[in-house]
């Protein structure tokens, strides 16, 4: 059990998803909901030992598992976590519970399939974070697209088909280029698919640059970085609330995780060589996309653009190659998982009541929905990077790290604190404050216990990481130091 914890975390939700798919149809929706809640909570509880039994003093892989799988290609079923992947797995298991609760009544059709899709997604996402074999990683990485494709396509908004096919093809294109790079590494390493072997593999600069670009195609699309971000606003807007939450909170993190697990350690020289490109694209995302967010009239679209802008901080932090930057990027990923997830849930709460996401349809919500207004304001402030919330910690660390490299990077990045405050607070002002805009808004009921539960949990986490980020920072410390040491050394033969 102890030795197979990661396998259990991957396969339990997948098996549960298949079970729910088989057991539930429309008539047994209640059963499907309860099963989904039970299984996702069980997976979350099972994932807690990953944190409590985690050895923070070592950068080595922990909870490892290894079995032979495809001998002909030397592919192994190899799993393990370190300080980078472990927090992301916990984020995944936690948010899946939140999504299941949030989708309790919001999905009128095909409840069993909806719940099953999210559980299967959960298993696949954990698989991505835990894989130590490149093919296994790739398997989970792409398989994840299938449930998301169906989630957006079946339960999404009016323009869902365009959005979901765009989402699928965009990510598939990036992934397949990565596959070619992985196969190149397989041959270059003399027949190994072990990711850790790739970390030690010496490579000349030219192949490094090409491999870096192939990885970039896969990860930049996922993050998403400017200019390949255009799938995200479409996908986010059309996806059902749960889909948006998982997309923003977990799937975007896979891009950042990919950079940390593949690009930096496998192609360190190319990473240094092309850092200017990454930093430029990150700063464009941070500043330009923030301005784009300012112009949005749809709340979901605004949060989607805000996500791209915040993920720009992550890639900026990664490619300035110092501990503050990378740790800031990691904290930013986790914190963005909480905040963007919470904001999408807030929009979902409103959408369930009024079936509109347009800012113009709301106004003066503070009067009919005071508790909701409090939550929304808290998350909006966290999104704007208010000190004391988790949003501040990550952005502050990244800006601090950027200062050490080049003050102008820091200035440009800090601009977004202003823009971020502008677009979020302006949205809050229009939605929450002011005069009550219509009778329908005046009649809205405040959050119920279920909604209070998931918003409360996320609010507590946002504040906890904001006030006392140490428990989060110390688990990733050893891994990130080791990673940077590794990245600083040249791999040129």
């Amino acid at each position: 059990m102890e030795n197979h914890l990661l396998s259990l975390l991957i396969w339990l939700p997948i098996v549960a998803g298949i079970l729910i798919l088989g057991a539930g149809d429309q008539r047994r929706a209640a059963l499907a909901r309860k099963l989904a809640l039970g299984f996702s909570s069980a997976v979350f509880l099972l994932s807690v030992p990953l944190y409590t039994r985690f050895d923070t003093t070592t950068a080595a892989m922990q909870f490892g598992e290894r079995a032979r799988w495809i001998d002909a290609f030397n592919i192994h079923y190899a799993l393990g976590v370190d300080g980078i992947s472990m927090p992301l797995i916990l984020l995944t298991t936690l948010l899946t519970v939140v999504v299941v609760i949030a989708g309790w009544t919001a999905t009128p059709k095909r409840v069993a399939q909806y719940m099953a899709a999210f559980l299967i997604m959960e298993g696949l996402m954990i698989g991505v974070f835990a894989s130590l074999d490149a093919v296994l990683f790739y398997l989970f990485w792409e398989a994840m697209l299938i449930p998301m494709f169906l989630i957006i396509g079946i339960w999404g908004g009016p323009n869902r088909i365009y959005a979901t096919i765009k989402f699928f093809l965009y990510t598939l294109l990036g992934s397949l280029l990565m596959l070619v790079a992985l196969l190149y590494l397989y041959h270059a390493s003399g027949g190994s698919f072990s990711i850790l072997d790739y970390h030690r593999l010496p490579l000349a600069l030219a192949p490094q640059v090409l491999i870096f670009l192939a990885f970039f195609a896969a990860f930049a699309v996922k993050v998403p970085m400017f200019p390949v971000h255009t799938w995200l606003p479409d996908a986010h807007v059309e996806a059902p609330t749960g889909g948006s939450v998982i997309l923003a909170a977990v799937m975007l993190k896979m891009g950042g995780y990919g950079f940390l697990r593949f690009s930096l350690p496998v192609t360190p020289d190319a990473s240094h060589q092309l850092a200017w490109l990454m930093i430029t694209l990150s700063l464009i995302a941070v500043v330009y996309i923030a301005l784009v967010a300012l112009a949005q009239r749809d709340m979901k679209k605004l949060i989607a653009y805000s996500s791209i802008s915040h993920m720009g901080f992550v890639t900026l932090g990664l490619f300035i190659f110092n501990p503050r930057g990378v740790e800031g990027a990691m904290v930013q990923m986790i914190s963005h998982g909480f905040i963007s997830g919470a904001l999408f849930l807030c929009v979902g709460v409103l959408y369930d009541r009024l079936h509109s996401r347009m800012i113009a349809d709301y106004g003066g919500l503070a009067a009919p929905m005071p508790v909701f207004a409090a939550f929304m304001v808290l998350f909006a402030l966290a999104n704007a990077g208010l000190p004391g919330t988790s949003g501040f910690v990550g952005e502050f660390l990244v800006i601090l790290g950027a200062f050490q490299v080049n003050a102008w990077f820091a200035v440009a990045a800090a601009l977004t604190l202003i823009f971020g405050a502008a677009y979020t607070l302006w949205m809050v002002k229009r939605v929450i404050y002011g005069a009550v805009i219509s009778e329908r808004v005046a009649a809205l009921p405040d959050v119920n216990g279920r909604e209070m539960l998931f918003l409360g949990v996320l609010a507590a986490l946002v504040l906890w990481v904001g006030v006392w980020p140490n428990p989060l920072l110390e688990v990733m410390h050893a891994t990130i130091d080791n990673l940077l040491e590794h990245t600083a050394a040249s791999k040129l033969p």
Partner: protein
Amino acid sequence: MNLASLRVTAALPEIFIALAACAILLLGVTGKPGKPNHRAALACPLAIAALLVTALLAGLNFPAGGGAVAAFNNLFIGDALAGLLKISMCLLCAAAFLYGRRYNRDRGLLTCEYYVLGLFSVAGMMVVASASHLLTLYLGLELMSLCLYAMVACHRDSRLASEAAMKYFVLGALASSILLYGMSLLYGLTGSLELPVIRAALFAEAADPDDAALALAVVFVVVALAFKLGAVPFHMWVPDVYHGAPTSTTAFLSAAPKVAAFAIVLRLLAGGLGDLAGIWQSMLVILAVLSVAAGNIIAIAQHNLKRMLAYSAVSHMGFFLFGIAAGSAQGYSASLFYVLVYAVMSLGAFGAVLCLARGDAECDRLDDLQGLSRRSPRTAFLILILMLSMAGIPPTAGFFAKLSVIQALVGAGLVWVAVVAVLLAVVGAFYYLRIIKLMYFDDPADASPATPPAGDPPAHLLLAFNALIIIAILPWIGALISLCNAVIAGAV
């Protein structure tokens, strides 16, 4: 020379299946003229049984220890590769018969004769799989093809089917004559029809790749094979034949003959002309790139499911050629694995079309799939798996098939070809996704309540098995790939 030296037992499966075909043919003539022959209904189960027994015989004939048995004065070779190919051909054809049983019955297609033709065609494929001589190769190929032409034409009242059969026959005959021409040049250059002797002769002469006659011979052979495979620009017959033929024949046509095509390509190019890889490798790369590109792009414009799957077949054949073009044992093994996986997927896809057909109505327009997930969720889910596998999305076997081919390309130093291949695979993913979109995201066109497709429990069961095996094989997929490696290592 005595009978023992011929080693007739090596051809036992072929002999058995030919006898079984004759027996079923006799069954067809037992009826009285003018009256329906009720015994003809037995033809299908008997043919399936014959195929299963043949598969068993081929399994028993599997050479121990990976050796090879040369029989009939080196006309015929019984090695592990032949064994594997024969078993898979028999099983694929048996499945195709089971899928098409109700379809053929509903349309009153030739009952006994259809299955007799099918069995003879399988016999031809099996001869091809075991050919080590140009003569055997050609005979097997013609036996297979002639039966297929007739199977395409067996829907006599259908103009589409007649047209398709005509095209298939004329182009197939043209390809055969080109192949013969290429073979005669090879004979002239090497003085032998035996593939191992040809290979040795070409090697001994240290064949000069600039030799015009040699290059011409290779060009003729490659063109003929490209015709048979349906690789661009020799693919014109594929969509018409797939579309026009009765769906039961299309299902038959889309699976086992592809495996046979692999056998021809391997025995002829990798076997006989293996040392001329320098000449045919670049030709195959061009054919493969064109096939994947044209197949995938044109498939997007199709409104007919069978036609779309035909173009998809063209693109899959391109992928299959990529593996051969790698020119290494690794590449051949990847191609073998690819073609086996493809045959199973393609059979499943056409099997689904057959399962969805009702009475006289076909279900082959894309719009017929609209909202299928409401009408018959199980079939829709199975088609979903098949489509994802065809698109090469993990965790399906189709992904591993693409992985091994791309891996072989990268291993052979053709990294840029691999990049082109994956870019085109993205284009291909679009039309498979469109099927999923039609089934899952669209509402049914008619508001009629759920009508389950006409009952044919064995075929539906087979479809479920066929689709689920594509995912369920995953833990053991390594063993399958190793098996492919082993049989190729024994054959090349």
